């Protein structure tokens, strides 16, 4: 086993993991605000990629503008999803709401298929298709975009939650909605905001990886699942854990394929899910999660 090969697995795992991390962060934001696991998260990723391909490739808008429009549209869809499906049912049990999100994911996939058809769409890499070679391991330029944007987003989200009034208000709602309400914070508004933020983040993830993986109406499901695994592994509700978990899933997948003996290929998805099961068995609160008791 050559050093350059291992490096290649690590680098690829890291970049793929960054995408999972963004999706996992999306899961976490909504979970913290509402306690819901939003299974339409993967569809936000898919819509981000497809909308970017439409605005950038078909409509020839400048990249930054296309990216912005794609993210904003998906954020608006997140907002609408909350307004039309979650809020009317806000007194329903959580399980009902989670099932509603599954329903929304099916609707979004169906609508995407009506609009874009069944084919996959490709987006040209943001800065050329060339690769960078580091000690024999290839890094596509797009990978740098993925990692860079992921890092930027993580830092901004962190700053948003820690430094801004709205961010702090959202955190307050997550910690104790009743107390937040008493302090004059509109919990509804914060929940709505969390959906928009989470949808926008996932759309950004979908947009930056579309040059690497192609976007199709059904490409969100598996990404959503990987992001979900990341969020669980890191400890549901823990933002840093989500990022850590997402990257871990990406790394494990690629190392799994690379180091597995001949004949075990094709099971890379299993590696991530085996780890997920192990974490759930051994440490149900996730690797970075605190052991918490159910709120009253």
């Amino acid at each position, binding site marked *: 086993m*050559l050093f350059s*090969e291992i490096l*290649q*697995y690590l680098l*690829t*795992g890291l970049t*793929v993991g960054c*995408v999972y991390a963004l999706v996992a962060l999306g899961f976490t934001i909504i979970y913290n605000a509402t306690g819901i696991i939003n299974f339409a998260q993967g569809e936000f990723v898919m819509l981000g990629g*497809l*909308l970017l391909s*439409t*605005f950038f490739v*078909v*409509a020839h808008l400048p990249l930054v503008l296309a990216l912005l429009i794609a993210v904003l*549209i998906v954020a*608006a*869809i997140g*907002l*609408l999803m909350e*307004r039309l499906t979650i809020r009317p049912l806000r007194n329903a049990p959580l399980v009902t709401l989670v099932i509603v999100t599954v329903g929304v994911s099916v609707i979004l996939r169906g*609508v995407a*298929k*009506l*609009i*874009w*058809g*069944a*084919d*996959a*769409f*490709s987006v*040209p890499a943001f800065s050329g*298709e060339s*690769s960078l*070679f580091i000690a024999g*391991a*290839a890094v*596509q330029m797009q990978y740098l975009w993925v990692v860079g944007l992921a890092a930027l987003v993580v830092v901004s989200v962190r700053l948003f939650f820690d430094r801004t009034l709205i961010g702090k208000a959202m955190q307050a709602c997550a910690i104790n909605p009743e107390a937040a309400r008493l302090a004059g914070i509109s919990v509804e508004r914060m929940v709505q905001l969390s959906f928009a933020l989470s949808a926008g983040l996932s759309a950004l993830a979908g947009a930056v*990886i579309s040059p*690497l*993986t*192609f976007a*199709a109406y*059904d*490409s969100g*499901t*598996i*990404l959503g699942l990987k992001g979900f695994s990341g969020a669980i592994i890191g400890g549901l509700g823990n933002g840093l854990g989500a990022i850590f978990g997402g990257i871990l899933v990406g790394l494990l*997948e*690629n*190392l799994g*394929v*690379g180091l597995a003996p*001949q*004949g075990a*290929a*094709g099971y*890379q*998805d299993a590696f991530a899910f085996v780890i997920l099961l192990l974490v759930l068995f051994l440490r149900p609160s996730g690797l970075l999660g605190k052991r918490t008791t159910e709120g009253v």
Partner: protein
Amino acid sequence: MRLFSRTLLALSVLSLVACLILAGCPKPAAPPATAPPASPVAPTAAAPTGQPFVIGAIFSVTGPGAPLGEPEKATAQMVEQKVNSEGGINGRPLKIIIEDDATEESKAVLAAKKLIEQDKVLAIIGPTMSGTTLACVKDCTTTGTPMVSCAASAKITNPIAERKWILSSAQTDVLAVQRLLDYLKAKKISNVAIICDSNAFGQSGAEQLKKQLPAAGIKIVDEEQFLTKDTSMVAQLTKIKAKKPGATICWGTNPGPAVVAKNAKSLGLTMPMFMSHGIANKKFIELAGPAAEGVIFPAGALLVVGELDPSNPQKAVLAKYAADYQAFANAPANTFGGHAYDALQILIAALKVAGDDRAKLCAELEKTKNHVGVGGTFNLSPSDHSGLTKDAFALVTIKDGAWKMVK
């Protein structure tokens, strides 16, 4: 305030819908399935009357197999319309009931059961994919319903003793691998790495490669797999790169092979890349972009119809199908729709003789001889339910974003 937020909400819904519709507009070639245009051909014969011949069709109109299933569906609708506008079959109308299996085995089985038990079809065309076809074999066999699959796995028609009712109109992977093997031998390539999709198509291809290549003295130095929807095949290709094979063979259907081509290029892999007839559509070139250049694959002659020798009997059939399909569906014809076309033509010819008897129909299908179709020249027999030879394949490469015959 309340009123205001309502209006705002309504406005945002409206603008969102507008955005989505706008986003969808530039998409070329709307799915042909939604609104078939009025018949381009005026009825030339008396309108068919009486009890229709009812045929079932199972296609993957949605799901990963949709790029194959959609043209198949459009082709079936086109043939149905054409046959009926030309007087039907023996004066009776043809009715094709099309079911979508969403590229899922379980749904394909349900569709087959529905077609056989509820619609009492005489025969079934499809399914689109190898996996969905194999899932339906049992129901067709136990009920004695002839099935002409549009999928390519060799397992569909073999072992022949267990496949009395199952036929296939697609060129099998056995022939594809034979065609590729000839080329590898001619180029004196002695060791290869294979990377295959984990779906039925990819695995059946892998099986054939592992059977035929070593038998011809070509060593398989590495064997990798990927999932159709995987986001990165870099890890698998890194392993291949380390083994330094003389060529890489990738067997799969879109979009997997396009990701393989792109990743291989980004890793700086320079060895020749061979692929399968699973990428014989424009989508592959569009997805893989510059990385598609130089990929060589066996495919039906439809792709290079312009380069065919005029003496080739297939040329006229291909040109007619391509023109008819373009006129009907307003999209270029592809090989997969061609499989449905061949299956229907063979079936219609047999229906003319056999009438409403399923067993007789199956026997008639087996008598098909020298039928020149889109996929090749069919010579079916009780011992060969696919009926094509490796000549059904042309070897095609991609140059400047277009298909070129490899001579």
